[in-house]
């Protein structure tokens, strides 16, 4: 065994004072650039640069030696400057956006404490907290009992639900694999999020076995067609096992008729999963929760507070009605270096084996702190307000002439808005519809002026087209 190294083992190698000073200076920059300027409607949403130009500006290559503090602080500034200000009132591009300062504080704290919540011993506060938050979310779904977990995104939640449904039907799949099973089939609407497809591929079920059910002219799944397609699949020798329906589709924000779908799932004994990643937050609103009527009849619900509730990425919950420990049975591997059974506390608190992940971030603190700060009533207000903004926008659009977007126009307007940095809205085609803009409006920072601005700006940018 060679002699302990050249470096002096007696002294710590880190200069904490320097590190902490850098932290406080960097924090000032973050506050100024991202939180002040980044939410200021007079500032740009984005500072557009072409990829090659940006790569040069950022000087990305890592080197042998480090850099002095001033240079690093400039780097912090540059990163902030050229990143999109997702908290800006004119960022309408994605289903996350806006800012909540309590969840932000929760996120900073999560990073500072830097831990995983696989066991009670390393994360006592957060194991208990996650449990409580999941319980509260389940209560809004209408379940007094159940199970659940926070996942690294809605795609993973949807995938877990698929895996659980399959495991419940065929527990031998865990040990024997898909070769021990008949051909399985999944049912979903073409409006569903693409993670259903990715999940089917990833899990070995196969894209071909994802069957798309017809939707009505509003984009909602047609239950009669679901029934038919299930019968058809059975007659073809496959085993239907899951219906994945949506509360709040990605592009149109549509809500599937859950009660009817539940009837059909009950009839055929299929697992009903509700992808409420986007729409789940309506459950906070007395006014709008009817959109999810019947959700308590589902087996699983995916819900992302990082979307409409502005909790900050990632914050995605998978909620289960099950009380038989299915989640743990399906996923567990019983690793003895983590989940020793002879610990000095109740080892049921070591929730790590419920997940497919090993290391798993603490995603509940940001939601919990915000919820404590504003209460369920505060969150309800936000959801209600978001709906009203959207309705106002629609009314205004109807009043304005010329608001009918053609295929070639949207990309050009998008390019102009990004290069000018005045706002960000996504566009996409849908089915046989041409490109159209999709505005997502829910940030607590928004006001009516921002809705007016949105319409004015599109007009302005596209005047000559």
């Amino acid at each position, binding site marked *: 065994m060679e002699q302990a190294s050249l470096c002096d083992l007696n002294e710590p190698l880190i200069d904490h004072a320097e590190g902490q000073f*850098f932290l406080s200076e960097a924090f000032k920059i973050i506050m100024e650039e991202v939180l002040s300027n980044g939410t200021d409607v007079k500032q740009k949403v984005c500072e557009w640069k072409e990829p090659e130009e940006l790569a040069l500006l*950022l000087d990305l290559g890592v080197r042998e030696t480090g850099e002095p503090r001033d240079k690093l602080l400039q780097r912090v500034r*540059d*990163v902030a400057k050229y990143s999109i*200000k997702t908290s800006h009132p004119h960022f309408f591009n994605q289903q996350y956006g806006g800012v909540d300062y309590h969840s932000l504080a929760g996120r900073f704290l999560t990073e500072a404490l830097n831990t995983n919540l696989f066991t009670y011993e390393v*994360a006592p506060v957060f194991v208990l907290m996650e449990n409580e938050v999941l319980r509260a979310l389940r209560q809004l779904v209408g379940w007094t009992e159940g199970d659940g977990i926070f996942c690294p995104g809605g795609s993973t939640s949807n995938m877990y639900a698929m895996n659980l449904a399959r495991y419940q039907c065929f527990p031998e799949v865990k040990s024997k*694999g898909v070769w021990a099973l008949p051909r399985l089939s999944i049912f979903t609407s073409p409006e569903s999020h693409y993670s259903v497809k990715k999940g089917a591929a990833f899990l070995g079920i196969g894209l071909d076995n994802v069957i798309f059910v017809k939707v009505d002219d509003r984009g909602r799944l047609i239950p009669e067609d679901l029934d038919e397609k299930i019968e058809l699949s059975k007659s073809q020798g496959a085993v239907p096992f899951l219906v994945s329906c949506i509360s709040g589709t990605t592009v149109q924000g549509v809500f599937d008729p859950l009660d009817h779908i539940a009837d059909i799932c009950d009839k055929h004994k299929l697992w009903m999963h509700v992808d409420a990643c986007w729409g789940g937050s309506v459950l906070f609103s007395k006014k709008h929760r009817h959109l999810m009527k019947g959700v308590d009849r589902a087996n699983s619900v995916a819900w992302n507070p990082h979307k409409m509730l502005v909790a900050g*990425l990632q914050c995605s919950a998978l909620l289960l009605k099950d009380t038989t420990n299915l989640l743990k049975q399906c996923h567990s591997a019983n690793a003895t270096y983590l989940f020793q059974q002879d610990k000095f506390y109740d080892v049921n608190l070591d929730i790590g084996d419920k997940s497919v*992940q090993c290391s798993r971030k603490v995603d509940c603190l940001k939601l919990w702190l915000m919820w404590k700060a504003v209460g369920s009533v505060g969150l309800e207000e936000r959801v209600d307000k978001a709906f009203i903004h959207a309705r106002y926008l629609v009314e205004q659009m109807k009043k304005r002439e010329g608001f009918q977007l053609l295929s070639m126009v949207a990309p050009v307007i998008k390019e102009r808005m990004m290069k000018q940095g005045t706002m960000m809205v996504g566009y996409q085609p849908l089915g046989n519809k041409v490109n159209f803009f999709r505005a997502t409006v829910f940030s607590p920072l928004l006001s009516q002026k921002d809705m007016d601005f949105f319409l004015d700006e599109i007009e302005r940018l596209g005047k000559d087209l």
Partner: protein
Amino acid sequence: ITDNILLNGPTLNVLASENFIHQSMSIIVENAIKKATDVREKVCEWRSPEQLKELLDLELRDGGESESEILQRFTDAIRYSVKTTHPRFFNQLYAGMEPYSMVASFIIEALKPSLYTYEVAPVFTLVEEAVLKKMMELIGWKDGGDGIFNAGIINGLSAAPRLVMFTSQECHYSISKAAALLGIGTKNVYAIPSDERGKMIPSALEEQILSAKSEGAVPFMVNATAGTTVLGAFDPIDVIADICEKHNLWLHVDACWGGAALLSSKHKHLLKGIHRADSVAWNPHKMLMACLQCSAFMVRDKTSLLQRCHSARASYLFQQDKFYDVSYDTGDKSVQCSRKPDAFKIWLMWKALGSRELEQRVDRALAMAGYLAEEIKKREGFRLLMEVAPVIKERMMKKGSMMVGYQPHGEKANFFRMIIISPQVSRQDMDFVLDEINNLGKDL
């Protein structure tokens, strides 16, 4: 006003909110950073679950709370959390406090970007590309490859005839979880025995491959581990690569823990042959102390395999008529949709410290472990029995003096597993660990 809701102004008072952030930041710096890394403070403030539930008052209610109440909750959450940045936290494969990475994390939290397209995350798209490029250089892939930072989920392949994969009995349990999730089945993961140092035995691998074939199964992959979870062993990658080449199997190297050794000219020999791997997993959030999560997955492939395997081409995200080069939209390589820009956490600290400093840290961690091993040999009585470890663990946690994990292993009884990562740790801490175990277990 519509529906009794005032639409003219934002719901949020930005000025008051900024003040709240400043205050919460002060609390973080004082308690979660300064005190947490202070060796004179406790590693953990143990409370039983029932006590803790009461103390934290977790219940969520209809009404909100005042700012000072929220700040108190904030402080409590820190107080009762384990200080994983403490110099005497040796419990897991992550530890220590890396301020540059933490700043990167704060930036990410403030900006809240998702990394699927260039348009929403221009900076982070380019940063991820640059970091992966450097990591692949260190692996030794001269022509480069492809890769992605993902939230610790293994990437999979599609099903065909009964597929079988091979891994060491010492491998991480995520292999088993992945096999179950992907529909391969845990029974089709063949565990290859390891030698007394914990390294996979290549001849046993060869045997099992032939055996699987004779059963009519189709071997498709071997997982070699560079730095096993419990023993820190490195599988003989070069020899395993020979076998994989011979049988045309995909070689994956799980270097989540041991990948950091690639930065050390002294120790990189432990991963000799890694350039022959088809894919490598490497977690900078472990030995390099980047903030969680920070896990890279890299493939030695230039045919867009990652994209072809995972893509769904969602038209609301990956429009082909964008005004910039859409090959920068990396989102479809991932199984995730929203994805955090984790590469940034290692990039900023790498810029700050340079490869040489990272190398020094890796060398130091290994030297520290070497010192500890020598000291243990010198001390009498350092042989732990089954019942003793849990009791000593309980005592150290209730005292809050340090945290070291224990586990059984094969037919071995419980033993402590010391993980040494942080450059803040010094020789005195090693002596302390041995003294403390001694003290806590004196009466046993």
